[in-house]
């Protein structure tokens, strides 16, 4: 217990003294996850909209595949990205292995199915009459799609927040493809794993506290988005 208390006290001291190593790790974590989230949203939202609004052969199978991929094991993603980017792999010439770019690729792969599936679900929950109403008011097919996306905006925001929570807490894939190199690819989760192994609990606990705080903020934002989407009085 005393080990925990001492660690906790030292962790607070690191946070309060704005320890540069600690904040470098936090910034890199936010940068990697943020980029991954932007790419995943740019790809996942149109995919979710396509699955929700268009009828095409193989649509049901695609929905099943996307839903299945939501549970992708991160270490498998890490392994596949590693094999693709390793020197002997098909994308080895890019020289991305053990770089933040490789971590972004792995996190993007993990986040895309989450954004796609949850955006699809949010769009499917929009009353079909909304689309028809937009058309009666002179919307083109693109404007109709935008009207539906606008109706689903709080659900879509929730999807993005859920994906952010997933990638921020991810460790397996980025450890494999990033290599946990100090000052270059070391992020919060990989640092916690490493420092715990080394018995250096102060930094691990400090990062753990910040991860928890971020998780709390993500959840608060998630609930705020859901509350905002609810009709007043319902």
């Amino acid at each position: 217990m005393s080990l925990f208390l001492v660690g906790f006290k030292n962790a607070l001291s690191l946070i309060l003294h704005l320890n540069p190593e600690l904040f470098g790790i936090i910034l890199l974590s936010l940068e990697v996850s943020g980029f991954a989230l932007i790419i995943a949203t740019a790809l996942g939202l149109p995919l979710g909209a396509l699955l929700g609004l268009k009828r095409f052969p193989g649509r049901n199978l695609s929905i099943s595949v996307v839903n299945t991929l939501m549970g992708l094991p991160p270490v498998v993603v890490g392994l596949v990205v590693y094999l693709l980017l390793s020197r002997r792999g098909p994308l080895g010439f890019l020289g991305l292995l053990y770089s933040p770019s490789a971590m972004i690729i792995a996190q993007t792969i993990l986040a895309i199915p989450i954004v796609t599936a949850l955006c699809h679900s949010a769009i499917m929950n929009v009353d079909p009459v909304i689309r028809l109403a937009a058309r009666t008011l002179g919307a083109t097919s693109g404007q109709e799609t935008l009207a539906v996306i606008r109706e689903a905006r709080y659900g879509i925001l929730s999807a993005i927040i859920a994906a952010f929570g997933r990638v921020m807490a991810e460790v397996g894939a980025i450890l494999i493809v990033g290599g946990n190199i100090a000052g270059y690819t070391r992020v919060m989760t990989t640092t916690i794993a490493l420092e715990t192994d080394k018995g250096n609990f102060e930094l691990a606990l400090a990062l753990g506290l910040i991860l928890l705080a971020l998780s709390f903020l993500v959840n608060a934002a998630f609930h705020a988005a859901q509350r905002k989407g609810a009709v007043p009085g319902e």
Partner: protein
Amino acid sequence: MKLTVSHIAKSYEGRTVLADCSSVFEQRGTYVLMGPNGSGKSTFLRICALLERQDSGGIAYLDNGAPLAQDIALKRRMTLVLPRVGVFNTTVSGNVAYGLTLRGVHRDMIKKRVAEALAFVGLGRKKDQHARTLSSGETQRLGIARALVLGPEVLFLDEPTASIDQENTTIIESIIQDMKKDDRSMVIMTTHDPDQADRLADRLLVLREGRIVPAP
């Protein structure tokens, strides 16, 4: 603008809804299409409003005798108020502004026209209220305001009073009568209520067994 409907037919999964419908709509005023529930009135309106394709037959819009291309420009000269309005998740004024925003109308003009349309249907004081908190009668009036604000040359009203109380029915009927006075649009509406048809129609049409027949 003149609308000519020639021998249109429509079936859903083998069930014939419209067998052979023909009519011409060319005068300002209110056309009322009457028929029992399930007689195909809504389908007829959606086809006329170019929201759905007929299986056979033709729809032609003519301006000074010249046929108009059935493109988005023509679609924006008409609008249809659905029986279930389809309220957007925003304020009352946000709903009414939607169609104007699509047309790229300037923000100041949108504000002015939205205020006028809401005043016309008696919802001026509710402009900032969330639209999904309106009663069903008010929602129907919102649907009419959302259409009227666009100044359509043809306004389709699909059972505008089917599921609302008597008070709101009276209000909506008086809105339709006021539109007639203002000569705003050619109104083509459906109803299953013969008394309402008598009160509102300048010209009455009856849809029976998938065909438009002369009013009795």
